[in-house]
């Protein structure tokens, strides 16, 4: 879902840059709970590992029926691990690195951050939070609740991001809206399955290997 240079019109490009920068500035001030703890410095090397995981999974595409392919976006996954506000910054930085290789345009980093970081991460996190609240009424184990919620939340967030991306394509005049939105949503309804499965497996693995790295448990209010 990496928008290349030259696809969006200048106004949409500028507006999405401004929105993304504003959200990152707000995010810096809002992500206090997790990063103001005395032992928060211990998180730094693991944030590096997370960066490697996200870059690696975004670098390779898995096959999707119908002659297309998908790759992990990871917004919701990062949000569940590091919190919704940090996820926007993480995705922005990953997108900057990818643009150096020509994967996603440099002028489109604002739009890509909006779609993958803000919709995928921030919005995805609150979808996960809502699902966790529903699952809190069941007797499932804590890690299963978060894993299931991450799978569903990632899936919904990726489909929502594709819907927004379709609207952006239409505003930019690349495609008529009646073509762009259904086509984007259709493909991502299939591609999103991979996103949900990979995100859930990574969260489940972290719960088994290093559960304290899921820094958002208190925000998710998982019981």
């Amino acid at each position, binding site marked *: 879902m990496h928008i290349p240079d030259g696809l969006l019109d200048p106004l949409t490009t500028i507006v999405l840059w401004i929105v993304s920068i504003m959200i990152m500035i707000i995010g810096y001030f809002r992500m206090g709970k997790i*990063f103001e703890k005395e032992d928060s410095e211990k998180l730094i090397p693991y944030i590096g590992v997370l960066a490697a995981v996200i870059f690696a999974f975004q670098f390779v595409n*898995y*096959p999707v029926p119908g002659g297309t392919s998908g790759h992990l976006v990871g917004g919701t996954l990062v949000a569940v691990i590091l919190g919704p506000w940090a996820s926007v910054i993480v995705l922005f930085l990953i997108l900057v690195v990818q643009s150096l290789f020509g994967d996603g345009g440099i002028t489109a980093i604002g739009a890509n951050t909006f779609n993958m970081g803000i919709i995928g991460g921030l919005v995805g996190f609150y979808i996960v939070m809502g699902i966790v609240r529903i699952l809190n009424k069941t007797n499932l184990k804590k890690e299963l609740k978060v894993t299931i919620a991450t799978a569903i939340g990632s899936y919904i967030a990726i489909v929502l991001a594709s819907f927004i991306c379709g609207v952006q394509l239409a505003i930019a005049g690349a*495609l008529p809206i009646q073509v762009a939105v259904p086509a984007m949503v259709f493909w991502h309804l299939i591609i999103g399955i991979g996103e949900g499965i990979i995100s859930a497996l990574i969260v489940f693995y972290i719960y088994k290997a290093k559960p304290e790295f899921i820094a958002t448990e208190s925000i998710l209010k998982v019981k």
Partner: protein
Amino acid sequence: MINVRRYRWPLISVFLIIGVLLLMIAIGYSIGVLSDNPDGLERVLIDNNGESWLESLPSPWIPLLSWIESDYFAGTVGIIISVCLMTIIFYIIISKKNRTKNG
């Protein structure tokens, strides 16, 4: 002086991730777990406007690392840059937040 032992497991993890990525690039396409096909957005644009239209979109720059043709090298360099960039930025954020908190 950086205490390397303290960062042993994160460093091992990063090298493992690079190793697994290189292995996946080497065998993933032949065993069918990876695909060269266009992704969702590219598919929509190619289906409606054609591949040549997508390739002719104007860009204000030549991506700095686009000269790297090998997937193995690009994956390794990308991971190293991502790890360094993310570590530095979050080190600054966490240090700044802790300093503000402690007055």
